[in-house]
């Protein structure tokens, strides 16, 4: 059998209406051979967890530019866990102040990427995270 495909949900929680970054990452992951489910703008944490459940993804990538990450990200993770998806890798991209990062990692975020991150790095990290999880 062929190697299991990595499935990633790319979601944008919150109210900012700008998804160029999310789309760039989605394309990079696709070009790296992953199956990327894209859900569009303005998703609540419940909606994101629900989509992750229906799609049985290995990874959830969140893109947040609004500054609401401290509130939204822990909610997404709490919803994933409430649904029983305790082993999903969560990463975060966007404009995240240095001071907030440790708190987010403590809540279970795998990694935080700022603007201008090399997408190859994201691909490599995801593959590694999924492999160690399995």
């Amino acid at each position, binding site marked *: 059998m062929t190697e299991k495909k990595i499935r990633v949900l790319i979601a944008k929680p919150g109210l900012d209406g700008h998804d160029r970054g999310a789309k760039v990452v989605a394309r990079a992951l*696709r070009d*790296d051979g992953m199956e990327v489910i*894209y859900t569009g703008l303005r998703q609540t944490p419940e909606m994101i967890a629900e989509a992750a459940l229906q799609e049985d993804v290995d990874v959830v990538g969140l893109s947040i530019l609004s500054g609401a990450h401290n509130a939204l990200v822990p909610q997404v993770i709490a919803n994933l866990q409430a649904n029983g998806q305790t082993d999903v890798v969560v990463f975060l991209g966007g404009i995240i102040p240095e001071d907030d990062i440790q708190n987010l990692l403590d809540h279970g975020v795998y990694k935080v990427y700022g603007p201008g991150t090399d997408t190859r790095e994201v691909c490599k990290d995801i593959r590694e995270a999924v492999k160690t999880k399995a």
Partner: protein
Amino acid sequence: MTSALIDSLRKGNRLALSRILSQVENGTDAGIAALEELFLETGTAHKIGITGPPGSGKSTLVNALTRELRRREPEKKVAIIAVDPSSPFTGGAILGDRVRMLDLQDDKQIFIRSMASRGALGGLAEQTEALSQVFDAAGYGFILIETVGAGQSEVDVVNLAHTTIVVDAPGMGDDIQSIKAGILEIADILVVNKADRPGADQSVSYLKNMVEMGYARSINNRNHHLEDFHENPVEATPSADWIPPVLKTVASEYQGITELTNAILTHAAHLRQSGQWHAKDQAAIRTNINHQLIAGLLKDFHQNVPAELVDSLVEKAQKRAISPNAAVRDLLAYNRNNTVESSE
């Protein structure tokens, strides 16, 4: 572990359902075992295929249609399988159909699953069918299957549906030419979506013409047939014929969705009354068994016949010393002799 998962699925646990869908899609041993068990609990769902060119509004239509189906038959759960192509170069895919189905997010009786075609041509149909069987066993009364209508493998996919809807939109190419030949013949219902755009009425009359021509042809054939047998035409004419309706919708505005839903439910009733529901089910099962039989026989063959023998015959054929046809005859003969011995 699997039987616990299957029990959870039977109790309506959606994470268990989702995990089993993945196992089945990946063709793991656990997935194959699960499907063997779950198949026995299938056979009640109404499977609806939605196909048509990219951008014609299939996902938007599925969104509107699902909401209407839930309103009309609230006791039935709805599953959606949305298939998008994988990149032939990297094997990756972007599956974006959910973006058009945001109205369905709050209803826990709806389950949307995106699926990449994974480059498997005929295999796509089998995988999609397998996923639809899991949903069927899990008690989903309607299963909507969205595929891009471009080639043969998509035709195969919609063949597993009871009701096939072909969607097009005006201005997608010269008068509806974007619908490929062959795909029209599989339509039980034709939809001209984006009817808010200019040219919709021309598209409708064009399609109606096509349907009438096709229908006239089949009537003619039948009359020939009847003359041959000197039978009473009234008695012998199947009362069951279905003429595909051509409907206009504006999916993004929920226009025409009532009529479309009526057509779908009428078609299901027609299939049941005419016995075609039963016939379609049987045909799908036969195709499924045939496909698996071919794969199984080929596997057996390769176990029985040494690869060197195959290689040497390929070489001989390449030197034009024998024909491929003769090579196959030799290989089958070898396989038969070998099988007789080993099956003791």
